[in-house]
């Protein structure tokens, strides 16, 4: 059997100068090629988990670690310097935090040069990443002259060009307008079709991750409170809402249809499904009245 991409076992982390544990008793296994949505209120431990997978914890932070965090079967602390970062790519909500170069092209090439790739390989990957993120027209531009949405696509492409096997996205579209956001998610779904990549997606707006995520994990107060395939995740909406997490509008509506016995079946995830459930419930009640 192949190792899971990420396996977290009885994991607890406490930052050195904080009172409580940031995450406690986490058990989480993510298969290769799986995409999970990680949700919870601020302070619930989402970013701590993301940083534990890419080795920033315990590498860059002081604290106390218990339990195991394995990436492709190897404990993150046992990876050689730089090797884990080659395996796990990280994209933040503020792309400027990661820019260093004077043109978009240099920005994209920088990481690959650092990997020591040959010129031909760099050229090939640059082409591939630019196609995927639609960046050809921007290559000569300085990163500070392009729009927020373009910046985030550059940041994403720069990470993808390193060909990470795991991609962690921490609120990648928080600063973007709806069109730019849709473009970023479009890049991610094309990426999933093209290659086997494991994704961990952190987002406050569930409507955006539902189309991508195979599975959703709810965190609260540093613990995993709910972990289920995306559709089943929404079986019990109260459990999600008490954590301050708001289900997408159509999921909320579908939940109400089911709760009030207007519709029997699984939760809708998308607008067309919810519309269908609504129509069926109206048709059923009309048929009932006419009988």
């Amino acid at each position, binding site marked *: 059997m192949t190792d899971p991409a990420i396996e977290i076992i009885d994991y607890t982390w406490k930052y050195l100068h904080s009172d409580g544990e940031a995450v406690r008793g986490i058990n989480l296994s993510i298969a290769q090629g799986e995409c999970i949505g990680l949700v919870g209120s601020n302070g619930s431990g989402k970013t701590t988990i993301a940083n534990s997978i890419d080795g920033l914890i315990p590498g860059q932070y002081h604290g106390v670690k218990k339990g195991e965090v394995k990436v492709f079967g190897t404990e993150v602390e046992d990876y050689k310097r730089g090797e884990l970062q080659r395996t796990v790519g990280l994209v933040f909500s503020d792309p400027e935090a990661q820019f260093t170069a004077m043109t978009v092209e240099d920005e994209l090439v920088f990481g690959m040069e650092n990997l020591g790739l040959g010129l031909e390989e760099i050229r090939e990957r640059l082409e591939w990443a630019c196609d995927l993120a639609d960046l050809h027209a921007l290559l000569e531009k300085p990163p500070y002259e392009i729009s927020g949405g373009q910046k985030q696509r550059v940041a994403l492409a720069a990470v993808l060009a390193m060909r990470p096997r795991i991609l962690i996205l921490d609120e990648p579209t928080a600063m973007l307008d709806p069109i730019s956001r849709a473009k970023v998610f479009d890049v991610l779904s094309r990426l999933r079709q093209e290659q086997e990549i494991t994704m961990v997606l952190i987002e*406050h707006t569930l409507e955006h991750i539902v189309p991508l995520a195979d599975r959703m994990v709810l965190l609260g107060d540093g613990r995993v409170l709910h972990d289920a395939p995306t559709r089943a995740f929404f079986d019990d909406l109260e459990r999600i809402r008490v954590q301050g997490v708001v289900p997408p*509008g159509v999921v909320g509506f579908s939940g109400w249809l089911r709760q009030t016995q207007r519709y029997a079946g699984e939760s809708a995830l998308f*607008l067309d499904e919810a519309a269908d459930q609504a129509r069926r419930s109206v048709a059923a009640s009309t048929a009932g009245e006419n009988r």
Partner: protein
Amino acid sequence: MSYVEVDHLNFSYPDGTPALEDVSVSLDTGEMIALIGQNGSGKTTLSKCLNGLLHPTSGSVRVDGRDSRKTAIADMVKRVGYVFQNPDHQLFNATCRDEIAYGPRNIGIEEDEVAVRVEEARAVVGLPESELDEHPFFLTKGLRQRVAIAAILALRPRVIIVDEPTTGQDARQSVEIMEFLTGLNRDHGHTIVIVTHDMDIVARFADRLLVMADKRLVADGPPSEIFGNPEVMSRASIAPPQITRLALELSDLGLPSDILSLEEMIEAFSKL
């Protein structure tokens, strides 16, 4: 006459790039407004024209009867305040107290009066007194945002523009910030303009929407009316809240087109 009168405003950056074309709009005191549109549509440029940071290339901006071109910036910022999207781009003093006092001091207010205003602004934003002498960067983002707003409030502007107040905040924090801004509007009579991409927030909190697209103001009206207008939505590349789209999709069942929240949807659907 309205408190803010924007008349055929055109603005081009020094290199000639146009950013606003023929914008006319008036804002009254006590309004709760959302300014929406894609990145690059002109929202921030318009905001900066309103508080006098930028001057019209042609046309005019009048605030409280004063032409922005003929009025000192210190006089403008007393009337229209602008809170940055990222409070960290605005906060630079070593304590919250100095941060809030900075604006009034800068426009020449006496120290006694500055102290009064700091206390007033602190109380309004609900910053604990114990935090006043803290470094802003030791506070949570929610509190830093409040300090940034308090720093603007201390100038006592009638109009407060807040750029993306809920970015990076979770659902609960977003509602908390918006309820706070609604309180400023309701209890203190400030005109609040939020610049945002979050249509659920818009639907829930704004009474009036200004929609920018490609440097122009393309719509101005209540959210229920604008979200129900597919032409405006597509021109501005904006999607109404998901629940509104569902109601529009089901309009043949007899659902109204002005549904903005799950609660309204459930109420309307129950009546079918």
